[in-house]
């Protein structure tokens, strides 16, 4: 046989040859016994391995093992009890993001589920230049070209999706929108982050308009109920718009600043600046906050699979989301994350390169992410199981 690779040498040193596929363990041992060159390399590999062991072994943590019975008691005391049907997830309100909602419709136009990692930006094709009639009463009389329509649509959706802003300062909002819609080549697509939204805004302006029109006319108000509590005190500047509402407003405000020649990164996004971009489930949040129960979560649990854990995400831009762990039939872990409205999945920290596949699909105004050591097709089948159950 040919010389033994470095990986096989390390497997040999780790006593793992028999775990390797192909049944070559015996021939490898024979070769190593006869080949001088491989014996030398085996010695070198052994030195590296020993060094790694020494490095890692040099920081052994002291061990404090509580009695197993203590852990049994804790396990018996902790229960996941489904209660109630409404929760904070929905209190964030329908105003969170028209853009994401439109994105949901666009991306699911063929019942399509998007594998994670497939949402990278693409080249934005040139939209045909055609006059666009007034997008709303707020923008009456303002002629907009197709180059600007994405921006205007988003800006308009900002006003419609966040009534509080429009009510507080309609004039200023109109001013912002008009400034944004002034002849700038830097359109909404430039301001969008690394998401399919770029693609979406480029290819589906008609969908945007339709959605905006229906939202304005009150045709489609079937989303979750509006927030029960008013947001923070209102402001009218671009930066405050960003702080007030996610997605559409943020992008629109960013574009407004760009149109004004100001750096978009001066935008103060309360969500980003103070919350960070992390997924942080709070364990036993129902104990910490009696108003919050895991049972408040939408049904993101696949029936027939063991529920390992369900927790609210309490920090970061994803606060209000839900994280569910379930055990698949073969013992693998299935992770389901429901991100609330307004969360841009591409804003999140990248998932670890652990070889797991993931799919993302719009769900209940937010996003549902499924990850497991499965193929995308298998995850889609799991998604169908979830849909079948709900």
């Amino acid at each position, binding site marked *: 046989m040919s010389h033994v*690779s*470095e*990986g*096989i*040498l*390390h*497997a040999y040193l*780790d006593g*793992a040859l028999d*775990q*390797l*596929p*192909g049944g070559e363990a015996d021939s490898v041992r024979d070769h190593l016994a006869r080949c001088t060159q491989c014996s030398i390399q085996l010695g070198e*590999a052994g030195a*590296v391995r020993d*060094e*790694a*062991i020494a*490095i*890692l072994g*040099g*920081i*052994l*943590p*002291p*061990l*404090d*093992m*509580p009695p*197993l019975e203590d*852990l*049994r008691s*804790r*396990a*018996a005391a*902790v229960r996941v009890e489904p209660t109630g049907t409404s929760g904070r997830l929905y209190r964030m309100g329908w105003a969170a993001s028209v853009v994401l909602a439109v994105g949901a419709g666009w991306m699911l136009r063929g019942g399509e589920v998007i594998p994670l990692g497939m949402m990278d930006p693409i080249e934005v094709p040139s939209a045909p230049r055609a006059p666009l009639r007034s997008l709303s009463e707020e923008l009456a009389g303002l002629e907009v070209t197709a180059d600007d329509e994405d921006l205007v649509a988003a800006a308009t959706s900002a006003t419609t999706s966040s009534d509080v802003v429009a009510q507080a300062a309609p004039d200023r909002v109109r001013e912002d929108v008009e400034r944004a819609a002034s002849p700038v080549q830097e359109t909404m697509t430039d301001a969008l982050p690394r998401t399919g939204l770029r693609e979406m805004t480029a290819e589906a302006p008609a969908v945007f308009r339709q959605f905006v029109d229906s939202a304005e006319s009150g045709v489609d108000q079937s989303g979750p109920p509006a927030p029960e509590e008013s947001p923070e005190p209102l402001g009218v500047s671009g930066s405050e718009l960003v702080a007030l509402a996610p997605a559409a407003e943020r992008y629109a405000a960013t574009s407004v600043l760009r149109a004004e020649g100001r750096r978009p990164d001066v935008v103060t996004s309360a969500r980003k600046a103070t919350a*960070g971009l*992390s*997924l*942080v*489930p709070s*364990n036993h949040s129902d104990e910490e906050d009696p108003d919050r129960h895991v049972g408040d979560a939408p049904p993101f649990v696949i029936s027939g699979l*063991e529920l*390992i*854990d369900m927790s609210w995400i309490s*920090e*970061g831009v994803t606060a209000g989301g839900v994280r569910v*762990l379930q*055990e698949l039939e073969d*013992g*693998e*872990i299935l*992770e389901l994350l429901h991100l609330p409205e307004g969360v841009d999945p591409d804003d999140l*920290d990248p998932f*670890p*390169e*652990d*070889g*797991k596949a993931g799919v993302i699909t719009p769900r209940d105004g937010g996003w549902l992410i499924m990850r497991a*050591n499965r193929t995308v097709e298998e995850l889609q089948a799991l998604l169908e199981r979830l849909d079948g159950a709900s």
Partner: protein
Amino acid sequence: MSVDWTDVYRNTYPDLVRFLHRKVWDVERAQDLAQEAFVRALRHEPKKPRAWLFQVAANLARDEARTVIRRKRHLTLLKSETEDLQASAPDLNDQLSEQERMVRVKAALEGLSDRDRDVLLLWDAGQSYTEIARQAGLAVGAIGTTLARARRRLADAYHETETEKANVAR
């Protein structure tokens, strides 16, 4: 087949703490997370408890790492630990040396790719190639190659920190 949890606990808990410690770099937190993983395991009684425990522990550690607040607290903790060490005279050199070693190991590990680090730490915690492959989503045949690379890079990075330290001392 029922699981002998006493046996699983005795054989897996130390490995789990070791694994978690290299993820969160806080002994108490590592033990907390290991216990949390066991509590969940006892509640759900998975069929393959060891693999299950490491999977849940890895998730817990990942969540931990993403907690900005926790990270800040940890930094504070490290600072106070250093101050404590300086205050305790008898084992000062040993403890400072240990602290320094931990910082170097941490820096060396952080120089690895996520995948290489995960595979290395799972192996270090006593997981078999098959278990590592399963958890890391790699083919079993790729584990040896990954480990070879990770070990070499760990050693190189560790020595680099030694060189840097010597240069600073001069």
